[in-house]
C-alpha cells in the first residue's frame, strides 16, 4: 500500500528566508491554479493577469481604488487578528461594521449643528463604539455565562444586517426617497487626492490603527495578557491574567476596529447608510487576518493583496469578459495554500510503501 505521510521534523524550520520562500511559492501556485481556471474559461492567462495587473497598478485611479478597498479589509483584519490572537473567535465583524456605520450615521445626522471637525470626530468615535457594543453581546455571554462566542458572534452578523435593512427602509430612510438609504451625512472624512480620485483620510486612520494594534499586542502588558490567553488559557489563568476582563476587553477592541471600518466606509466612501452597505468586508477580513498570520504588518500586506486582486479582477472582467469572481477564487486558494503549507515548517512529507496490516484472528 502506498502511503503519504507527514513526519515531525526534529526541529521546526524557523529561517525567515525559508518561510518567505514558502509564502512566495504558495502565492505563485495560487496564481498558477487561477491561470488554469482562466484558460478553462477560454481566455489567455497571460492576457488575463496582464489585465489584472494593469487594473490594480496600471493607473493612478486603479491604485487609489486598491488603497480605498484595502482600508476596510485592513481594519476588520486587524479586529479579527486582535480577537483570534487572544483566543476570542469573533466572527461577527460584518455585523460590527454595520453597527459601527449605523451609529456613525446617526451621530452625523443627529448633531448637525456642531462644528464639522467635532462632528466628524464624534461620528468616528460613535462608529467604534457601535461596533464594540455589538461585539459586547457575544463577549458578555462568554464572560458571564460561559457561552462559546463563535455562534453568537456569527449570528449577530445577520441580526445587524437585518436591523440596518429595517432602519434604512423605515425610521432612518431619507425623506422623500424610495431608495433604501439614509440622507447624506454632513461631516465627512477629508479627501487626500484631487478630483476625480477619491482617496480619503480613512486610509491614514487604518495605518495608524495598524501601528496601534502592533504596539498593543507586542509592547504593552495588556497585550501580553491577551496573547497569553490566546496561547494557553490555563497558563494565563495560572499566571494571574484576569480572564473575564480579557474576554470583554478583547472583544471591545476587536468590535471597535470593525466598527471603525464601518464608520470609515460611511464617512469616506458612501456618505450615507444603505442596504447592503458592506461588501462582505467583515468575512473577507477574517481571511485577511489568517493570511496575515494575525500579525498587524502581515494583515496590512494581506489586505493590500486581496484588494488589488479584486480591483484588478474587475478590469480583467471588463477587458476579457472573464467573471471577476475569479479574484475570490484566487484569494481563497492563496489562503488555503499559505495556511496549509505552514504544516511543512514542522513536518516533512514522505511517501512510503508498506506491507498490509494485521487483522483480528
Amino acid at each position, binding site marked *: 500500500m502506498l*502511503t503519504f*505521510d507527514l*513526519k515531525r521534523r*526534529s*526541529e521546526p524550520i524557523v529561517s525567515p528566508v525559508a518561510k518567505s520562500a514558502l509564502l512566495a511559492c504558495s502565492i505563485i501556485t495560487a496564481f498558477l491554479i487561477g491561470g488554469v481556471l482562466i484558460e478553462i474559461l477560454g481566455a489567455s492567462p497571460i492576457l488575463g493577469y496582464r489585465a489584472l495587473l494593469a487594473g490594480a497598478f496600471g493607473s493612478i485611479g486603479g491604485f487609489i481604488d486598491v488603497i480605498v478597498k484595502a482600508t476596510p479589509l485592513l481594519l476588520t483584519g486587524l479586529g479579527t487578528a486582535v480577537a483570534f490572537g487572544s483566543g476570542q473567535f469573533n466572527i461577527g465583524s460584518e455585523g460590527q461594521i454595520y453597527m459601527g456605520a449605523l451609529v456613525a450615521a446617526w451621530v452625523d445626522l443627529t448633531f448637525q449643528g456642531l462644528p464639522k471637525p467635532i462632528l466628524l470626530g464624534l461620528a468616528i468615535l460613535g462608529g467604534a463604539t457601535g461596533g464594540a457594543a455589538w461585539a459586547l453581546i457575544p463577549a458578555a455571554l462568554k464572560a458571564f455565562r460561559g457561552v462559546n462566542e463563535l455562534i453568537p458572534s456569527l449570528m449577530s452578523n445577520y441580526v445587524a444586517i437585518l436591523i440596518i435593512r429595517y432602519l434604512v427602509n423605515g425610521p432612518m430612510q431619507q425623506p422623500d426617497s424610495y431608495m433604501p438609504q439614509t440622507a447624506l451625512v454632513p461631516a465627512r472624512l477629508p479627501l487626500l487626492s484631487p478630483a476625480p480620485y477619491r482617496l480619503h483620510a480613512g486610509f491614514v486612520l487604518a495605518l495608524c490603527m495598524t501601528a496601534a494594534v502592533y*504596539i498593543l499586542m507586542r*509592547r*504593552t*502588558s*495588556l497585550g*501580553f*495578557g491577551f*496573547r*497569553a490567553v490566546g*496561547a*494557553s488559557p*490555563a*497558563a*494565563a*489563568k*495560572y*499566571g*494571574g*491574567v*484576569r480572564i473575564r476582563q480579557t474576554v470583554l476587553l478583547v472583544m471591545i477592541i476587536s468590535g471597535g476596529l470593525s466598527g471603525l471600518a464601518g464608520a470609515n466606509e460611511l464617512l469616506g466612501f458612501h456618505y450615507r447608510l444603505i442596504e447592503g452597505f458592506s461588501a462582505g468586508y467583515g468575512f473577507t477580513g477574517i481571511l485577511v487576518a489568517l493570511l496575515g498570520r494575525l500579525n498587524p504588518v502581515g494583515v496590512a500586506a494581506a489586505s493590500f493583496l486581496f484588494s488589488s486582486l479584486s480591483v484588478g479582477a474587475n478590469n480583467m472582467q471588463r477587458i476579457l469578459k472573464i467573471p471577476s469572481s475569479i479574484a475570490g477564487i484566487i484569494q481563497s486558494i492563496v489562503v488555503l495554500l499559505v495556511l496549509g503549507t505552514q504544516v511543512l515548517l514542522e513536518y516533512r512529507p514522505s511517501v*512510503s*510503501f*508498506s*506491507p498490509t*496490516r*494485521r*487483522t*483480528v484472528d
Partner: protein
Amino acid sequence: MTTMLLMKNITKRFPGVLANDRVSLDVREGEIHALVGENGAGKTTLMNVLYGLYQPDDGQIFVRGREVRICSPRDAISLGIGMIHQHFMLVPAFTVAENVALGLKSSKGIVLEMDSIRRRIEQLSAQYGLSMDSQAQVWQLPVGVQQQAEILKALIRGAEILILDEPTGVLPPQEILRLFATLRSFAAQGFSIIFISHKLKEVMEIGDRITVLRQGRVISTIKATDASVEELARMMVGRDVNFAPQRKKPVLGDAVLRLSNLTVFDDRGVEALKDFSLEMYKGEILGVAGVQGSGQTELAEVLAGLRRCRSGHILLGNRDLTNAAPHTVIEAGLAYVPEDRKRVGTIGTFSVAENSILKSHTRAPFAGKLLLRRRSIAEHARCLVQEYDIRTHGIDVEARTLSGGNLQKLILAREVSRSASVLVAMQPTRGLDIQATEFTHRKLLELRDSGMAVLLISADLDEVLALSGRVAVLYEGRLMDVLPAELANKQSVGLLMAGIGGRRDGGTIEAEEKGHSHLGSTHLRRGAGD
C-alpha cells in the same frame, strides 16, 4: 535463551546532535531488558527507530535472527513489536474494546467485530491475570488499568516484543507492584520486554539485564543482580551522585499558611478534599503523600486560586485568601509550581523571556503604566537562565523548545524570583532525569533554609521521605495524619496512603472496607519486600 531482537550499531543523527552512536542492544526471549539513561541520552530515539518512527542512518535490526527494515509503526507491529507510550494513546470516551478495535482491520469489511474483540480481551485478561472490563469506558478506569488496556491493545495486535516507555511515571506505588507482576508473568510466557525508565531502584527490581545509555552511546549492559544504584547512577551521569536524605527536623517557626476545614470539589463535582486542615511553618518542607487522585491536584489548585472551595478558609500570613483570584494569590506571595509544566506552567509559544515574567508582566520593573520594559525583562530572564543553569539557545527562543528539566528550572526560577513566602510544588521532579532532579531537590532545600515554607506534593514516595521535615498523608481527600520525619517511612506512610490508621475521629484505627482488603494487603506485601 534465544535472542529475540538484536539492534546492531544503530546510528541516528539529527541536525547538530548524534542521538544514537553505534548503539547495540540485544533482547532475549522471556527477558525484561531495562533501558536507562538521562533525558537526551538517546533512549527514546532508539525506541523510535525500533518502532519505525525514525530511520537509522546506519546499523541493522534483526528480529528472531532475520534482518528487517522497519519503515513505519505498521511494519513494527507486523513484526510483533508493540509500544506502550508514556502518555496513553486511548480515546477516553471509547470502551476498552472499542479502543482495541481502533485501527484493527476487520475481516468482515466495514462491519466491526466487537464480539470477537471482546472475547479476545477477556481471554487474554484471564490468561495473564488482569482484571479488565472490556465494556468500561476508558476515562472511568484508574491509570493502572488504562495502562493494562494499552498493553492488551499491543498483545491483540500480535506483539511479542513490548516496549514500555516510562511506564511507572503515572502509577501509584501499589499499581507499580501490580504492573511488575504482570510484566513478570509476560516474561515467563516468553515475551520480551524493553522497560525504559530512569528510576534506578525500579530498574534493578524489574530488569533481568540493564543497558545504560549516555550521550547516545551504550555505556554498559549488565545483569541487574550485579548492579547497584550508585554504580548505575555513575554510569548514567558520568560522575558520583549523592543520594543521602536531606530532611531536617523543622524548627517550627511562625505559621505562614493556615488551611482550615477546606472542602473542595473536583471537575466532576465530587468531593475531592474533605474538611482539610493544615498549618505550615516558616522554613519547613512539608511533604504530601497519597495515592494519585487522593485530592493532591485539588489541594494545589485551591491554594493557587485556580479552584474554588465550598467551605473552609485559607490564611496566608494575616491575609484571607479563601476563594481569592489567582492574581491576588500571586500578589500575596504564594508561588506555585504546577504539575503540568507544558500546559499550565509555561506558554510554549512564548519566549523564555516572556515566560520568565508570566506572573509579573503588569508589575514594575517589567512594565510601566502601559508598556512592557523590554530591557529589564531581558535582564531578568538572563539572570534566571544563568543562576538556574537553564540550557537554552537564548532568551528569545520559544519555551517549547526546552527540555522538561530546563522548563522546570525556568518555572522554579520564575516562581522563586517573586519573593514568595510559600511555595507549592506539585510533582516537581516527575519525568526529570537524575541531574535535573538533583538540582530541583537542592533548590527546594535552599529555599527551605532561606525561610520559605515549601509544600511538596509528590507521587514519588522516596522523594517525599527524603526531603520533608513533616509528611502529610492524603487518603480519599482526607488528611490521614501528619507524621514528623522520624516517624515517616515507607511502611508507616504506605499504610496511611491505603487508608489504614491515622488520627481522624480521635486517632482510632479505622479502615474503609475496600481500602483495607485490597490496598492494605498490597501494602503489607510491599512493606515486607523493602
